[in-house]
């Protein structure tokens, strides 16, 4: 299988008053088409910085080393002008908080349409048709009418559906989901995970799923990268990482998850 995304020895460094700090150190992983790779770690482990680096969205001041290749093309070091064409078209990202990622002043239909027309030359009529299609695909009821709604008129789960519709409207080859279900209730989380898995099956998108929740990772990822303090502590098939972790940190992380099915002596 040809690899869609290849990250090799990625290092992200920030200048601080006490000298440069590596927030990501020598991280390497690959994502195939139709595959989901999970990145797990606690706060400050560098998991979000890794995904932002792939999108070329690191905060100003950050420097990178290593290599990030999408479909064989090197992304690191390319000017922002070119990366803008990659973002949305070939690689898209969804974030934890859909409310702060959507513009409150515009209807969701207009925002999805904007994304589509930034990459495809087409009439507004054609774009509107695509928007309705995208909203239908993510399970928004009455998509023609709801396209004219503002973000605040949707519930949290529906907003995340809108974000997914926007991210997938140009059929990107790679989707990066950074804690997409963390802010949601468990029942809604289950719906969104099912939706993402279904969309991926239909379109063959490669996915990077970033989360602190190992249980979520285990239900969605084929391969897992465990990060701690910017370092890659473990990387392997999900089954190996969960059933036979090689690193003590992974084991500790797995042991600290509270379990619903265990007997507890109080």
């Amino acid at each position: 299988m040809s690899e869609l995304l290849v990250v090799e020895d990625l290092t992200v460094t920030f200048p601080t008053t006490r000298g440069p700090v590596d927030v990501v150190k020598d991280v390497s992983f690959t994502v195939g088409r139709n595959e989901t790779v999970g990145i797990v770690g606690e706060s400050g482990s560098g998991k979000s910085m890794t995904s932002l680096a792939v999108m070329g969205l690191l905060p100003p001041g950050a420097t990178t080393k290593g290599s990030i290749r999408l479909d064989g093309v090197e992304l690191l070091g390319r000017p922002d002008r070119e990366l803008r064409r990659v973002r949305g078209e070939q690689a898209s990202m969804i974030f934890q908080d859909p409310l702060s990622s959507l513009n409150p002043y515009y209807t969701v239909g207009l925002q999805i349409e904007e994304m589509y027309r930034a990459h495809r030359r087409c009439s507004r009529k054609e774009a509107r048709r695509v928007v309705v299609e995208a909203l239908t695909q993510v399970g928004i009821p009455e998509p023609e009418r709801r396209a004219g709604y503002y973000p605040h008129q949707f519930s949290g789960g529906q907003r995340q559906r809108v974000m997914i519709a926007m991210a997938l409207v140009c059929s990107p080859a790679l989707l990066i989901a950074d804690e997409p279900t963390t802010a949601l209730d468990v029942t809604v989380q289950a719906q969104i995970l099912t939706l993402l898995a279904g969309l991926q099956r239909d379109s063959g998108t490669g996915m990077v799923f970033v989360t602190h929740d190992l249980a979520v990772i285990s239900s969605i990822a084929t391969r897992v990268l465990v990060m701690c303090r910017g370092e890659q502590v473990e990387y392997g098939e999900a089954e190996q990482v969960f059933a036979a972790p090689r690193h003590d940190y992974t084991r500790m992380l797995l042991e600290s998850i509270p379990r619903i099915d265990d007997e507890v002596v109080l």
Partner: protein
Amino acid sequence: MSDDVLLRVRDLTKRFTTRGPYRRRNEFTAVDGVSFDVRLGETLAVVGESGCGKSTSARIVARLMEPTSGTLEFDGEDITHAAGARLARYRAKVQVVFQDPFSSLNPRHTVERILMAPLDYQGIAPKGGRRAYTRELMERVGLNPDHAHRYPAQFSGGQAQRIGIARALAVDPKLVICDEAVSALDVSVQAQIIELLRRLQRESGFSYIFIAHDLAVVRQLAQRVAVMNKGRIVEQGPCDEVFKAPEDPYTRTLLAAIPRINPEWDRRRRAAR
């Protein structure tokens, strides 16, 4: 009910009125006829999804909010409308630990001042003096007592939550209400705080009302659980029964939605240890 009931809540209802456009009044019932008991030394968990009314119920029990109707009875005394000295006495026995330690700790106060605040409010002189009692409380929750003169911002999230817990313990309460007290923490830190909460209860024998949306966390802490949905308690009972054989369809949906690690992988990892 036996005599060991510490808190008796009956038919608690809270309605909020909001004004829509054109002065239209909208009523919203956040808590709808909720009844439960908390026994001495036990942990009752109240679980449910956002907006189900679990936090509103907790706030009413803590007397931080007035109920529209219903009664609260604590230690045999009706405190639903207690005021003045009686309310102050109630507050000496019931303490709250909040979700976000940083927004519930005054950033301009030192740990010592924060921990002594409940005693200052009660007008109680700390035993052994302020400094010694602060050190004792900090040690109990696993903080370095030499840090008594630091400010909240100098602590990590887990440590700050320990300060919040120490403050709740300062007055030696009989009931501690934890409102999503471990929800904002990383799993490894969360596990430590859960262990701390269990140890403190073993040592002091107080009761917890543990408000949470994470049922797996609840399983680690509570003997009994009340499941809320849309302002009502849809099911309550011993944790083991509710989790193993849920009777209400909503409880079943909630349990089914929890992501789990492949049990086969889990079993193999544990066996290899």
